């Protein structure tokens, strides 16, 4: 589509507000953003500034109050909930601050979960799951439950789950927020690695300046708008 012209994410004139009772809380106001394919973009801003809200719009978890969100040439802000669900499986890899693995499933099964929605054969699933787990260095922990893994290991399983469907875009919301410095370092190295070897486009929300350093470009959310800051 002509709209994309190189940018994988295009956010145009987006407003997002929430209602709490009679109050209206304007979080994003006339926000515009373009992310070129393959970019590693850092998003910073004070707590409550709307970073997660913006990420949710781009990842198709929520819809803007006004404006358009295009991802990979598709106008996702116009999709129905069921369409968005299907779209997310193939196009978005989500990494959470608190990992959010399903506690009843093993590392292997957690990574396999999104593949169940794609109608792949058992052996195809196995191949993809193992590739992802090897990439994050956990091929020897496939039968472990989340409760039997450290925070850093759980987050690596979370990353494997995010990349297993080979999505267009990886969004990470404070992926190191709950980790000690060393584990955080490992996770950031892993994201760099994904970037380098798989050429993924990555959107990273973080409070941590050391994490932001890794990004090609860092944007700050301020009063509902994005402000660029030179590296």
């Amino acid at each position, binding site marked *: 589509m002509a709209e994309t012209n190189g940018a994988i994410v295009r956010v145009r004139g987006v407003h997002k507000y929430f209602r709490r009772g009679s109050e209206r809380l304007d979080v994003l106001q006339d926000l515009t953003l373009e992310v070129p394919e393959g970019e590693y973009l850092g998003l910073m801003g004070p707590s409550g500034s709307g970073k997660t809200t913006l990420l949710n719009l781009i990842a198709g978890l929520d819809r803007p109050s006004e404006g358009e969100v295009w991802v990979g040439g598709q106008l996702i802000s116009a999709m129905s909930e069921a369409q968005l669900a299907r779209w*997310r499986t193939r196009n978005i890899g989500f990494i959470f601050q608190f990992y959010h693995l399903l506690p009843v499933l093993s590392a292997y099964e957690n990574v396999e979960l999104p593949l169940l929605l794609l109608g792949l054969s058992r052996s195809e699933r196995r191949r993809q799951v193992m590739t992802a787990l090897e990439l994050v260095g956990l091929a020897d922990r496939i039968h472990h439950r989340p409760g039997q893994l450290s925070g850093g290991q759980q987050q690596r399983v979370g990353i494997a789950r995010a990349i297993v469907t080979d999505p267009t875009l990886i969004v990470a919301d404070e992926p190191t927020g709950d980790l000690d410095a060393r584990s955080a370092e490992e996770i950031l190295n892993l994201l760099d690695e994904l970037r380098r070897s798989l050429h993924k486009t990555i959107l990273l929300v973080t409070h941590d300046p050391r994490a932001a350093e890794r990004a090609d470009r860092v944007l700050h959310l301020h009063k509902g708008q994005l402000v660029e800051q030179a590296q």
Partner: protein
Amino acid sequence: MKILGLILKNIGRNPLRSILTALGTMVLVFVVTMVWSVLWVLDLITAEKQENLKAIVTERWSIPSRLPFAYAAPISDGAVRQPGDIRPDDSMTWQFYLGSLDPKNLTRDSFIFAIACEPDKLGRIENGKFVTMMDGLESLSPKDQAALLEAIDRLKANRQGIILGYNHLANINRMTGDVRDVNIDQLMGKRIKLFGIGGYKGLDLEFEIVGVFPAGRYDNLGAFHRDYFNNALDQYPQTHGGRKHLLADRNLNLVWLKVPNMAAYNRVSAQIDQSPSFQDPAVKCETASSGMAAFLEPLRDLIWGARYVLAPACLITLSLVIANAISISVRERRPELAVMKVLGFRPAQILWLVLGESLLLGAGAGLASAALTYGVINWYFDGLRFPIGFLDRFYIPINALGWGAMIGAVAALVGSFVPAWTARSVKPAEVFAKVA
């Protein structure tokens, strides 16, 4: 399917809660299964058959019914008086007799309740087909049928013969040798003496065991030749200083009539009602089912309550138990369900994930409960003692297994629908928003 595995794992995640929910389901399904089994049997026997129905003729104004034996022949004929009157297809007279094997020790186990009747009404081959006037003996296995026919032949040949119920044989066995397994063959031909008790006092009869009723409904009933009974009553004065036995003139308790259809029944019933021969005592004619319905009349409120209050109350409670357990589990799992949505699970899939969990739990526990009830009641207790009228015990019908699973499944669906809908509507963006 993989999703099924996920459902099973979710059930296993909080084993205590799942087990408690399953146990609650089992208890409630048990109660409903019992109630429905009893109602099912009662419905079956009170449902009016349209063809080949049985009528029962008894004394009109008195319970127990005691008619003069002189009524036997005319009633059996349907009181036909003029051309055009309808004769029943078949009939059977019942004269009750109650005796004890041991007059010095009148325990319940020593009692034998028997009917004096015409042997071939118990069962015979007519036009190549087995016919009987005894409810429940119509469709025996070929082996049971052959054994019964042989016993009836021996009864015809031996005026003092008696066919006993299985429980009588077991009691006789216990009195003589305390052997647990009843050896029927060994008891065949054995002579017993019964000492009349209650209204039958002084009427002591000697018998030779010639057979046993097929296991089931008639485990507590004996049957013998009515000629022997009538003879014994006739001879009574000779040994009792010329006095007749109290029951000498009133020893016919009831007559069964078989008629081809409702129209025939109405005619026969009218013939009997209008007959001048049955004035004192007067008689009444009912279908077997209306007779049973009349018998159940005093229990009507109870049965109504069981059907429309107890059973539905159990079902509602069951739904609430399941709703409670599933709501808690959904609330605990909100973040997980949100993650699944983020990964691309669609609302309908999430809905089924939750419904499937409760459906599996409910149907499984329901089936297990019904199967347990079926096994324990039918095999271990050999039926549920519940004497109403001529019924002695109830058995849980095999359908109960289906009911059990279905009750569990339906209650689970009803109970988990709201929580499942809540799960379906989980908004990931809201779950993960840290609302400041």
